[in-house]
């Protein structure tokens, strides 16, 4: 292998792609899209409470409805005077979302309440009504039982659970589990997308050289393995450039996020919005202040990104060389797509249980590892031997796929006319 030739191929692949309009658009539109998404995310968080559902309450005990209205005056309307029939009509005509009849039996015998409603409002409405009802009923029952103030207070208590992580060297750190889960999944998804995106670049590049018929001119100067290596390195450099720009933009956004979010609000923030914001901050603190990411996680991300890219791009190149046009690739590409999607499935599983058997095995299998392992590393403490083994297995597998792909590629690029099937691929491997 001649490094000069590889370098020339790499340079061409990189420069022609980096200058292309598609690359520029993707590189700068994606962060813009993320900012937009971020804005939408905040907006949804702040304004989803605006829709009100009106529930008519026919309270035959006449003790419940007042407390309900205290809880949520817009939602619960006192309709004790109306007959059930007219309540039904109101629901049917859509003037009410639903109604509840509360009788003495509900209170004393714990008979379940019946909410008759139009079906609007979704699960969120049902569960919030349920919460409201339970709370009000409990208070009323406590009141009737004439328990002391002290006991009443006991029922009011909500014990909090704060969590901090204890690291190996004995330091307690702020627990960012929620943030880290999202970070882990995000990293997995970035690698998932990159494998498809850049693998596809490679595949289309190979097909283009075949359909342009330039491949034979090139192979009269460059060995197929040099061409393949140069191509993979060129697109790899492109990937690193693009991801680098994205990460840089994202960290800038992260730094600017809190001030922007505040700016967003300050104009016309009502007390209610402020409250919503506080609630949001409590539940998802990282929207407003992004915790720092450990350097080791970033280093591992780069390692798994590169290994995952190499592993799959060599396969994509082989498929490209066997096909005669992009439409021909569909049947060949399936066995490459399946492991990527399985890995994606395991990633979603690992999000909740990063230490389960499936997650651990998934993070060791080379074809799943780049997507699964990186998210586990971000989410949980992964023993070093697992990470090491995973990287080792990926390198070995990459050597294998590269060897196979080089053989297929060597024959494939010069066979025009008909698309190859699996039988042909095996023949080529034996031939090479």
């Amino acid at each position, binding site marked *: 292998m*001649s490094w000069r*030739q590889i370098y*020339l*191929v790499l340079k*061409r692949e990189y420069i*022609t792609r980096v200058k*292309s309009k598609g690359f520029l658009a993707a590189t700068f539109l994606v962060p813009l899209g993320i900012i937009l998404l971020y804005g939408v995310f905040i907006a949804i968080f702040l304004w989803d409470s605006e829709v009100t559902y009106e529930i008519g309450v026919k309270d035959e005990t006449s003790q419940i409805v007042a407390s309900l209205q205290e809880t949520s005056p817009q939602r619960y309307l006192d309709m004790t005077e109306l007959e059930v029939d007219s309540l039904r009509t109101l629901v049917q005509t859509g003037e009410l979302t639903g109604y509840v009849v509360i009788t003495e039996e509900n209170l004393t015998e714990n008979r379940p309440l019946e909410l008759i409603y139009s079906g609007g409002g979704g699960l969120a409405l049902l569960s919030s009504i349920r919460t409201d009802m339970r709370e009000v009923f409990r208070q009323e029952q406590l009141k009737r039982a004439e328990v002391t103030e002290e006991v009443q207070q006991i029922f009011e208590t909500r014990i909090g659970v704060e969590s901090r992580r204890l690291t190996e060297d004995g330091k307690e750190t702020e627990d960012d589990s929620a943030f880290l889960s999202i970070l882990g999944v995000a990293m997995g998804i970035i690698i998932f997308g990159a494998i498809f995106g850049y693998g596809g670049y490679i595949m289309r590049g190979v097909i*283009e*050289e075949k359909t*342009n*018929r*330039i*491949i*034979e*001119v*090139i*192979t*009269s*100067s*460059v*060995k197929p393995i040099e061409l393949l290596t140069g191509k993979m390195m060129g697109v790899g450099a492109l990937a690193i450039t693009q991801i680098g720009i994205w990460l840089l933009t994202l960290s800038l956004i992260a730094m600017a996020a809190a001030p922007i979010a505040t700016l967003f609000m300050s104009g016309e923030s009502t007390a209610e919005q402020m409250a919503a914001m506080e609630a949001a901050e409590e539940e998802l603190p990282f929207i407003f202040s992004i915790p720092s990411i450990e350097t080791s996680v970033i280093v591992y991300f780069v390692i798994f990104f590169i290994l995952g890219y190499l592993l799959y791009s060599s396969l994509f190149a082989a498929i490209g060389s066997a096909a005669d046009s992009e439409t021909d690739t569909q049947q060949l590409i399936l066995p490459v797509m399946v492991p990527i999607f399985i890995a994606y499935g395991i990633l979603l599983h690992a999000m909740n249980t990063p230490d389960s058997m499936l997650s651990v095995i998934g993070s060791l299998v080379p074809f799943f590892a780049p997507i699964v392992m990186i998210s586990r590393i971000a989410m949980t403490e992964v023993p070093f031997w697992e990470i090491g083994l995973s990287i080792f297995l990926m390198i070995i597998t990459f050597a294998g796929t590269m060897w196979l792909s080089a053989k297929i590629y060597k024959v494939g690029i*010069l066979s*025009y*006319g008909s698309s190859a099937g699996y039988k042909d691929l095996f*023949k080529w491997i034996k031939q090479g």
Partner: protein
Amino acid sequence: MNKKTTIEVQNLSKTFGQTKAVQNVSFKVEKGRIFGLLGPNGAGKTTTIRMINYIITIDEGTILINDQPVSPKTQKLIGYMPEERGLYKKMKVGEQLMYLAQLKGLNAKDAETNIRYWLNRFKAADWHLKSVGELSKGMSQKIQFIATIVHDPDIYIFDEPFSGLDPINSELLKEIIIELRDKGKTILFSTHRMEQVEQMCDDICLFNNGKVVLTGNLRKIKKDFGKNTILLEYDGDGSFIDDLDDVRINNRSTNFAEIRLLNDQDPQAILKTAIEHAKIHKFELVEPSLNEIFISTVGEDNIKTEEAA
């Protein structure tokens, strides 16, 4: 004349699965000559050329370029224009030629000089910044020539160079080939159209069905076959030609026929018959055409052609 051998092919064989594409082929290309590789489509010409260019591996036999076995090093001595031609559509002409020249081992400065020279020579100096996709077919063919010769190699290989060329570029390419030969360069080209070879080649090698059937100096081969072909130009009813015995009619139009004499048929007898039936403008006894030589060497029934895709 300096009889140094530039390309030497010895007992070359190549098999693809069940197909024996090339079987025990040997020939020599001498320095400073134009060598024609002839034969029908599917005869093994392209496979042989690809092995000379070190694009595909050799199963058996050897190929020596300037006495060295083929390798990435010998690749750089060759300018190759394949039958399947193409360029990167989105790349600019200048960048593209620079890339290809550098792959052939030129440094950027020499490459730039050569690119300028050839673009000027083809009156294409202002194409430097155009992308290939913008060029017409004829224009991109010219760029393809430059891509082949830009690194100023000693050996040039053209696979079916005239297929798909417009007449202007065909002439241009012939000029280039003759000019290169006059500069002492060695040229090997393949074609299935025999008549092109007659005008240009010094030496030939005839391929059929993966094997060499005839190789050597074109003049000598023709002379050895003797003057046994009649070129006949006439006016009037030509149907008498169909009734001739012991001849093969190769080329025929309403008032012209190329008649190959077989089994020592007497040309005078044919002239006599011809005069009886038509008005004769020309009757000439010549050496056979290359096509005729090919047919009579291989035998009419043994010519296997495979339609090009």
